[in-house]
């Protein structure tokens, strides 16, 4: 088994190769405005460094987001197209789950919050419970202004760029900022083993920013 993981939901363009037991190669580049440029070259360099070719892949996993739309789509369409071209399945995983899994080793048993940059002064967020390294999501991902989250939620150890942008609102930052595809790959391997469904579906959480002619007329 050889799985290619891709995530473009955060400021990192991140890809990794996983063979079911370990990470064979991983590469990330931080640039929130250059997902289109970087994702395919990073995949090519990971494959080259592991002396593998695209035809060796047996599955692809992508981060479903939530994340800024334009960048998010780049990773998803790359994964979907490669899966189609190579005739292998494509799985989708909530990117906030990946961040929570990345942070799990650094927090003791308890809850944590993932809050990432949703632009427009908002965060994408979700709450998680961590028990002996196992991470469970407690709430469906949502998008909100950080000040609109309750105090007890914001007080949780917080993963993602939310605390970088609003340090006064998130008092307990965890130094995990962007998605790491190596962890995304591991989650995909685990979920596949557990027989979980992993549909690919971009988590936009916002409707397109436009009014229909009927809505405009009603104003």
């Amino acid at each position, binding site marked *: 088994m050889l799985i290619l993981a891709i995530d473009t939901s955060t400021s990192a363009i991140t890809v990794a190769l996983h063979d079911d037991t370990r990470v064979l190669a991983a590469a990330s580049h931080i640039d929130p405005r250059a997902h289109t440029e970087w994702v395919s070259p990073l995949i090519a360099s990971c494959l080259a460094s592991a002396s593998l070719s695209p035809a060796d892949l047996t599955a692809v996993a992508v981060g479903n987001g939530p994340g800024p739309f334009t960048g998010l789509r780049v990773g998803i*369409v790359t994964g979907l197209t490669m899966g189609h071209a190579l005739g292998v399945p494509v799985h989708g995983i909530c990117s906030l789950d990946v961040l929570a899994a990345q942070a799990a080793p650094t927090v003791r048993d308890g809850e944590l919050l993932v809050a990432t940059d949703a632009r427009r002064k908002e965060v994408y967020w979700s709450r998680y419970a961590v028990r002996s390294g196992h991470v469970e999501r407690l709430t469906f991902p949502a998008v909100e202004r950080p000040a609109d989250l309750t105090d007890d939620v914001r007080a949780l150890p917080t993963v993602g760029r939310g605390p970088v942008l609003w340090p006064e609102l998130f008092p307990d930052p965890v130094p995990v900022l962007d998605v790491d595809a190596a962890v995304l790959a591991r989650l995909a391997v685990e979920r596949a083993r557990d027989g979980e469904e992993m549909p690919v579906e971009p988590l936009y959480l916002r409707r*397109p920013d436009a009014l229909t002619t009927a809505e405009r007329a009603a104003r």
Partner: protein
Amino acid sequence: MSDQPLVLGIETSCDETGVGIVRGETLLVDAVASSVDDHARFGGVVPEVASRAHLEEMVPTIERACREAGVALKDLDAISVTSGPGLAGSLMVGVASAKALALSLGIPLYGVNHLASHVAVDIVEHGPLPEPTLALLVSGGHSSLLLVPDVTNDIRSLGSTIDDAAGEAFDKVARVLGLPFPGGPHIDREARGGQVTIDFPRGLTTGRDMERHRFDFSFSGLKTSVSRWVQAREAAGEPVPVADVAASFQEAVVDVLTRKAVLACKEHGAQHLQIGGGVAANSRLREMAQSRCDAAGIELRVPRPGLCTDNGAMVAALGTQMVLKGREASRLDLPADSSMPVTQVQS
């Protein structure tokens, strides 16, 4: 025949997800998924709606194109994709998908200019492009007069719109007349039942303008003039003769486009005029271009309407030419360039 390059082209610069496959100069398939119905509710193209539709339609459209052409992806020699100009978020979906195909299949990738593709598409319709060709590209996004000595690496801009695109003017006037989006086909249909009774202004066609903006266009004054005319009628409590207004407006647009295009042919020694873009489907434009070209001894080439609007076939047609002319492939880190200049054929 089978030694001719087999190229798959992807187009996502606006609201059409297009995938075409060309072998040499033969079009095998032109698969298009349009999100125009999604945009009609908004009265215009909404970039985010278009981008979401591209993501949903991208792989299914590739799949459909291959199935209908009886081509397996592994048989392809190259991938080409519109890398600009266009809506940034829309372009990125196609560019990322094209890179993923090229990477997966281990074949070259060509990121090409959308406008150059509009010119190249005529190769699969009417054979090799005469050199130079003069191209008039008119749509909701562009209004350009181009001199094309070599579609793969030498395109010169003679002029373009200084305000609204021609197709945009059709959409705006349609709205004034209470006709649905997209306006072009509706105005065309209305105009057929009307008379040219109103003398609307022809932008940038007189005196100083012909010196400074010889081959440029301007349609925003025309649009304003139509809307003032209609408002005056309404204010006077008189009925608006929709068909006559449509015919008169259309006549003004078409008159300027064809007059400047034929003049450009004469001044730049082009024996051929090609018209492309969605507005090329306009029946009056085709008619007037034909009669003016005939009078000037110029050969008019207009691809069929389906190849004039945005599609993947045009991108595949240009990609095939890039391969045949031995142009170097694009790099895998090529960007989507929403404001790619028309003079840059490849990125």
